């Protein structure tokens, strides 16, 4: 079941993504309305993070296209923010909390110029929003998991974007942080920002998201949470892998098959 919207903020059209020729996402096709908090949910290895990365242009697409605000990503990068998984970076890196948040301003500042006092003011303000202003000068190696996640969120806020893609922002954070983050996301959504979150905890799906994207190597369902979050749909998404799909993927990888005719 796929519910499409008029004038979508994000349009993913027939997206197929492969790792070393083996397709991991097949023909994903959905749209998102403005101002929603959308969850991407599915079993391990369903391709949730892959979907996010391919929307952000970090992985080449085998086929299909992605449009944001009805434009290709290149033209609207300044309106798009990405929060990678917390584990993807080295937290021993010698930078302070404020430095990390300021990185969110780099896209706006451009090449060869440094961040100015206005950028610092924005960064501090964003840190305040996630309740971390007391930690601005702190080294990132001294943060707990929840604090690291808040810093990443502040960095995304500093981008002043209109759509936010977050990869597992609730993974390994404490309950207080999780509540603080979801409160913030709701505020953002009511300011007409769109937020897409990769999530793995089914318990909180109904409470957190108003739109749901159900993934298991292909798109199982996409639409308003109350329509998608049904036993039947969850059974489809979590009821085992599509063995034929992975077999075909294996054959493609082994025989070095191109994904296009030319």
């Amino acid at each position, binding site marked *: 079941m796929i519910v499409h919207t008029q004038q979508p903020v994000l349009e993913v059209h027939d997206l197929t993504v492969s790792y070393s020729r083996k397709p991991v996402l097949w023909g994903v096709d959905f749209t998102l309305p403005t101002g929603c908090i959308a969850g991407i949910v599915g079993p391990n290895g369903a391709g949730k993070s892959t979907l996010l990365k391919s929307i952000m242009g*970090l992985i080449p697409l085998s086929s299909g296209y992605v449009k944001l605000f009805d434009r290709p990503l290149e033209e609207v990068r300044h309106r798009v*923010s*990405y929060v990678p998984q917390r584990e993807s970076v080295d937290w021993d890196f010698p930078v302070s909390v404020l430095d990390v948040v300021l*990185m969110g301003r780099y*896209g706006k500042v451009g090449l060869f110029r440094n*961040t100015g006092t206005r950028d610092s003011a924005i960064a501090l303000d964003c840190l305040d929003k996630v309740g971390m202003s007391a930690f601005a000068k702190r080294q990132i190696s001294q943060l707990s998991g929840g604090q690291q996640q808040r810093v990443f969120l502040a960095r995304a806020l500093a981008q002043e974007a209109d759509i936010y893609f977050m990869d597992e922002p609730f993974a390994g954070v404490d309950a207080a942080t999780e509540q603080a983050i979801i409160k913030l996301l709701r505020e953002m959504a009511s300011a007409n920002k769109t937020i897409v979150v990769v999530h793995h905890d089914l318990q909180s799906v109904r409470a957190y998201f108003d739109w749901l994207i159900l993934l298991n190597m292909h798109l199982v369902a996409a639409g308003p949470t109350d329509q998608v979050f049904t036993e039947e749909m969850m059974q489809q998404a979590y009821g085992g892998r599509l063995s034929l799909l992975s077999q075909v993927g294996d054959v493609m990888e082994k025989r070095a098959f191109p994904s296009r005719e030319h």
Partner: protein
Amino acid sequence: MIAFWIILTGALVAITCGLLGCFLILRKMSMVGDAISHAVLPGIVIAFLLSGSRETLPMLLGAGATGMLATFLIEYFHRRANLQTDAAIGVTFTFLFAVGIILISVFAGKVDLDQDCVLYGEIAYVPIDLWVMDGGIILGPRPVYILSAMLLVVILFIKVGYKELKLTSFDPAFASALGISTALWHYLLMAAVSLTTVSSFESVGAILVIAFLIGPPATAYLLTHDLKHMLAITAVLGIFIAFAGYWMAYWLNASIAGCMAVVTGICFASVFVAQRIAKRKSSPAMPGEAIG
């Protein structure tokens, strides 16, 4: 005066290498620095054969080219042939280095380079390699000028690209999402390392280049949590190592490059051990990791 020039040369090399090395170790690419410092050898020999002299420019070009060739080959074998990175590095640089050694043996008569100086360098001869103007005015050792120019280039490079270098090292995925090309900055950094290696190679040899690329930055990394401080400490350490290394060599009457490498090791070891002791003393009182 001789001591002054040698120490100055050593310090210039140490600072230049160290500044770039900071980014190498933060990118977990120290061994690529090692590979480049070996791989420039055939480039130097070929440039020498073609130009017939020790002119700086052909040397820089030749060695810069083989240095970049090494980075490219490592990437190519890794991506196209699915060769694991460590093996790609190991195979590529030993091959290029072996080619360099063979070229030296083949053209032994024509090339004013010998095998040993490749590893040790000839820092002791730096004060002799003078730059004499047409009017007979002696401006001082030639390598000092070249290395100073190189240091300026590197400082400029880091100053201009500081924020991009920092971001692409810390979080490449986020950098790409902002539209900053991680590949471009990777190759710019590698080019800078190649050029630095070449200009330092003649004076201090391959081994000291590696020691300077990794030693001072690794020591500074233990001492600070701030990238700017890390760069500054690296520079100060570089000067200290040049001093101490020279006096140690003078005192032992041994290889200057070797002694500088040993001092680099001693610096790292003392900081490392001091921190271990400090940690062991304080650890029973350390509270558990804060939550929230």
